C-alpha cells in the first residue's frame, strides 16, 4: 500500500532581510494537521521563519519537529520564544504550547495577515478536511463550515489518486492541465468510487493526464459544493496544501466564475501557523500589561 508518490519534500524558510536578535518579542504558532505540520515564528509581529513538515503518528513529536525545523540554523533557542499557540487537530496534545486555539480562528487570522483586510472567504483544503471560513476585515470568523468526515476533496484523496497513477503528487496539477480538452469529471461523491472509475477509464484507453484532469475536476466540484453552502464573497483566498495544486485551484476558480482572489504570500500552507503565532503575540503582550 505504501509508495513514495505521495511524498512532497519537507522544507523550512527564513527571512534573509531580518535579524531576529534585534526583535523585542519572539512568538510561535504550531499547526499540527492530520497530514502536515507547520511551525511559524514571528519576530515583533513579522514572519521570521517557518517550516512545512509531514505529521508523524504522534502529535507532540510532530509539533516539536515542526518548530525545531523552523528555527534550525537561525540561532534561536526554544527558550527565546515567549509564547506558543498550538492549533490543528493535534492542538490539544502539544506540550510546549501555552494555549490551544481552533484552526478555524487561526486560518482566518493568518489569511487576513498574509493577504490583507479585503479577504472575506477563506477555503482551506487540508490533508483530511475541507474548511469554508467567512471573516471580517480584522480576520475574525463570521461563519465556518468544516467537513472532515469524507476524503473526497481532501489531500488524502489526491494522494490515493497519485499512488494509483504512480505520479509524484507535486506534478499532478501541471499534468492535469496538459490535456487537449477537458474530460468529464469522475465521481465527486467518494474517493473509493472515483478510484474504481479511474481504473476503468485507464483500461478503456484514457491517458494519465486525462484521468488526473477528471479527478481534479471532481475535486473542484466537491469543494465548490461545500463553499456554496455558506456562500462565496470576495475577496477569496485558498490555504492548505492543495492550494499548491494548480490543476485543482484553476478549476475551482473557473467554477466560481472568476471571483477576485488573493494569493497568500510567502506560503499559503502556513496560514494556520501564522494565525496561531499572531494569537500568541496578542496573548503574550496582554499578559505583560
Amino acid at each position, binding site marked *: *500500500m505504501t509508495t513514495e508518490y505521495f511524498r512532497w519534500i519537507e522544507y523550512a524558510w527564513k527571512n534573509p532581510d531580518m535579524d531576529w536578535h534585534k526583535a523585542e518579542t519572539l512568538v510561535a504558532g504550531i499547526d499540527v494537521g492530520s497530514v502536515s505540520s507547520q511551525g511559524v515564528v514571528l519576530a515583533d509581529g513579522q514572519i521570521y521563519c517557518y517550516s512545512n513538515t509531514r505529521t508523524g*503518528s504522534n502529535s507532540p513529536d510532530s509539533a516539536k519537529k515542526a518548530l525545531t525545523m523552523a528555527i534550525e540554523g537561525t540561532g534561536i533557542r526554544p527558550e527565546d520564544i515567549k509564547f506558543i499557540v498550538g492549533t490543528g487537530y493535534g492542538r490539544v496534545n502539544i506540550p510546549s504550547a501555552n494555549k490551544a486555539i481552533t484552526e478555524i480562528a487561526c486560518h482566518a487570522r493568518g489569511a487576513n495577515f498574509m493577504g490583507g483586510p479585503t479577504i472575506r472567504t477563506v477555503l482551506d483544503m487540508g490533508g*483530511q478536511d475541507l474548511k469554508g471560513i467567512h471573516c471580517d476585515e480584522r480576520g475574525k470568523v463570521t461563519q465556518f463550515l468544516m467537513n472532515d*468526515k*469524507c*476524503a473526497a476533496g481532501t489531500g*488524502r*484523496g489526491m494522494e*490515493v489518486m497519485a499512488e494509483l497513477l504512480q505520479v509524484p503528487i507535486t506534478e499532478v496539477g501541471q499534468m492535469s492541465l496538459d490535456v487537449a480538452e477537458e474530460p468529464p469529471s469522475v465521481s465527486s*461523491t*467518494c*474517493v*473509493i*468510487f472515483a478510484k474504481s472509475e479511474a*481504473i*476503468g477509464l485507464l*483500461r*478503456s484507453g484514457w491517458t494519465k493526464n486525462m484521468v488526473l484532469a477528471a479527478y481534479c475536476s471532481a475535486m473542484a466540484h466537491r469543494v465548490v459544493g461545500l463553499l456554496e453552502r455558506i456562500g462565496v464573497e470576495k475577496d477569496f483566498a485558498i490555504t492548505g496544501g492543495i492550494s499548491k495544486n494548480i490543476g485543482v485551484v484553476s478549476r475551482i476558480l473557473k467554477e466560481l466564475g472568476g471571483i477576485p482572489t488573493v494569493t497568500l504570500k510567502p506560503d499559503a500552507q502556513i496560514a494556520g501557523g501564522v494565525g496561531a503565532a499572531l494569537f500568541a503575540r496578542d496573548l503574550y503582550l496582554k499578559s505583560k500589561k
Partner: protein
Amino acid sequence: MITAGIDVGAQAVKVVIVSDGKVLARNLLPTGFDPQESAQKALDGAIHQAGISRGDVKRIVATGAGRKSIAFADRNITEVTADAKGANKLMPSVRTVIDIGAEEARGISCDAEGKVIDFAKNDKCAAGAGAFVESMARALEIKVPEMIEISLKSTKDAPINATCAVFAESEVVSLIHTKIDKADIAHAVHDAIASRVASMVRRIPIDKDVALIGGVANNAAIAEAMKKHLGVDVLVPENPQFVSALGAALAAAA
C-alpha cells in the same frame, strides 16, 4: 414458468433462475466495468447450471444499482421491492429486512405479503457497507475471512475515529504500529458498521422477525454486532447474497 432475476450490484452480479417458485440455479460474477456483459455471462452460467436453454427462460427482471443498464431484461424493479419479495419467500415471518451490500445498506419494513411499507438507506458512502470491511482488511494486511474470525474472538474495541474508509485505512496503519491487537481493530470496524446500519434502520419501524441479507450478511461478525446494536435476534438465510435476485425472479413470474 421459468424466470430469471438479475441483481446488478456495485461489486457483483447475481443471477437466480426460478421455476414455479423453486430455485433451479444461482450464479455470481464480478460486475467489473461492463455490467451488461457481466450480467449476460452470469445468466449464461446459471442457465447452463440449471441444465436448460436460453429459450426456456420466459421472463427476466433486473434489479440492483445497475439494473437500468441491462437492455436484455424485460423490466426492472427497485432493490427495495426485490429485497422484500425475496426475503418474504424464504422467511414468511420476516417484517424487517436489512440488506448490506458492497456500497449501500438498506432497511425495509414490509407486510405479511412481502410488500414494502417503508424503507431507509445509507448510500453513496463506502464507509456504510462492505467496501469498508474490505478496505480495513487491506490495511490490516489480512484477508476478509481471517478478519471475521479474529474479530469474533475479540471482546474489546480499538479506537477508530475515522468515519471514512480512506481515512480509516491510514488510521489503522498507525494503530498497528502502536501494537494494538489486530483482532480488536477488526472488532471495532465491524462494530462501527453495525452501529451505523442500526441507526439507519431505526428510522423505520422495527418489527420481528428481522432478517439480514446481502453479501455482508455472510460476515458472522457483522451479524453478531447487528444483534447487539438492534437488541433483537437477526435471521440470516442461506445464500443471503442472492435474496434480491430471487425477489426479482419471483417478480418476473407474477
